[in-house]
């Protein structure tokens, strides 16, 4: 395979004294779709925030397109960020702006295009996510799933090289969720984007993933293609695939003590 577009080396991070990421090593290759799996709270969103340079790590490096984003100057980082789209877990739409203005904002700020052309581009993006006609709505007037899709439209507004999606289909009905999967496939094949998706939906993992990365407790437990994942004999991977809950506590005395303590 060719050179990785993102190289993460020995990434450590913590909130206060709590260690969240404990030595992540990960290569992401151009034009692939990488799915990051893991239990709630294992640090997936935190990992994405570090990759796009929102949080600074305790140590380790993140090299994106030959620039270490943890140490880059603001100008350098901005250049990289302009070629990146990010869908936040909660959408993070600007609540003071209409849906249309949200999608148009990066275009207005970073492209020399005329307002009328930007308007057309904005409508195209909204159309792609199935929100045509909603450009004058305020985010507060949208449902949760519609917000997600509007935020996705904003993330792809600049036709980024790399798209990060934090749980794009969480909280969506199965039909729209499948539509988002289709959209991701379309972006990948038609626009040749590199896509990193965090998700809990095993169905969509098997639909969109080129490679799967399974995180647990701040570490990567498994990294490989979906076929390799299906065949894997690592207990944690098997537990994940079989949707088996953790073993029940069989020690009632300890349990009582823990509650009382």
């Amino acid at each position: 395979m060719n050179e990785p577009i993102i190289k993460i080396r020995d990434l450590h991070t913590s909130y206060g004294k709590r260690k969240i990421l404990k030595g992540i090593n990960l290569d992401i290759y151009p034009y692939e779709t990488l799915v990051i799996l893991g239990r709630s709270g294992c640090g997936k969103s935190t990992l994405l925030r570090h990759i796009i340079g929102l949080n600074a790590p305790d140590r380790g490096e993140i090299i994106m397109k030959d620039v270490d984003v943890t140490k880059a100057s603001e100008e350098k980082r901005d250049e990289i960020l302009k070629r990146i789209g990010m869908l936040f877990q909660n959408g993070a739409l600007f609540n003071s702006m209409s849906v249309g203005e949200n999608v148009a904002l990066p275009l207005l700020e970073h492209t020399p295009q005329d307002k009328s052309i930007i308007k057309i581009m904005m409508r195209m993006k909204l159309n792609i996510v199935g929100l045509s006609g909603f450009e004058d709505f305020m985010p507060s007037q949208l449902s949760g799933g519609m917000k997600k899709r509007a935020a996705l439209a904003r993330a792809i507004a600049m036709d980024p090289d790399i798209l990060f999606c934090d749980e794009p289909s969480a909280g969506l009905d199965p039909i729209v969720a499948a539509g988002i999967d289709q959209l991701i496939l379309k972006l990948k094949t038609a626009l040749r984007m590199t896509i990193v998706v965090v998700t809990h939906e095993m169905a969509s993992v098997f639909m969109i993933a080129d490679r799967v990365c399974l995180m647990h407790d701040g570490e990567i437990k498994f990294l490989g293609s979906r076929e390799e994942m299906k065949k894997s004999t690592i207990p944690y991977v098997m537990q994940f695939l079989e949707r088996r809950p953790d073993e029940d506590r069989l020690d009632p005395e300890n349990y009582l003590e823990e509650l009382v303590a």
Partner: protein
Amino acid sequence: MADLKATAGQSGRSLAFFFVHVARMARLTGLSLIWIFVAPFKGKKLRWGVTFVQMVRIGVESVPIVGVISFCVGLIIAMQAADQLEKFGATIYVADLVSVTMCRELGPLITAIIVAGRSGSAIAAEIGTMKVSEEIDALQTMALNPIGFLVVPRLLAMMIVVPCLTILSDFVGIAGGFVLALTNLKLAFIAYFNETAGALYAKDFITGLVKSFFFAIIIAQVGAYQGFNVSGGAEGVGKSTTTAVVVSIFLVIFADLMFTMLFYSTL
């Protein structure tokens, strides 16, 4: 003893925190001023559209309240002054007292306190809400600097609008004195006018405006800083908003003290 130690440790920590906050706020102010005065020459445009919207919100919308309060304060000083000066049959000097206090002190101060309450809090709440809903993060990932995008338009609007409101406050306050003089004190319009004109020097007026310009910077920056400092959801936004108002009024009065020492103290 242990208690004492703990208390001492805590006050030491609070003091250290205080200086950390001051340093960070100074940094934010420095960066914002660079955005206003240096960045435009490096090809980064100022956002005049948003600035104008903020000028309307901060300035135009507070004209009525600034007007009414200044008028009342003008009347109040005039009445208090007249009450004292009547003993000497020198009520004409009400004109001097009202005009000089309004221009030097009360105009800038009243305006700053009203703007801090109305708009300093709004800045903290807006930015704070954006912080908790990750909108600030979203801005950053779009390569839009939150200082240039959010703080600068508000700061610029404040710097333009607060001195204007101060001028309004000065005049309306003096007008309040006029009203009392003409009705209650039965002074002649021309006499009162001449006395006012004779009492006021350019310095009175200008020092007031200079102060109000710095008050504007204080209010905008404290608001923005408290907004960026929000943590922990809606409750945090509320806390920061309150803190923004209290801290900016404190700093405004402290700055006023410093300016008065600088301009008028004979020490």
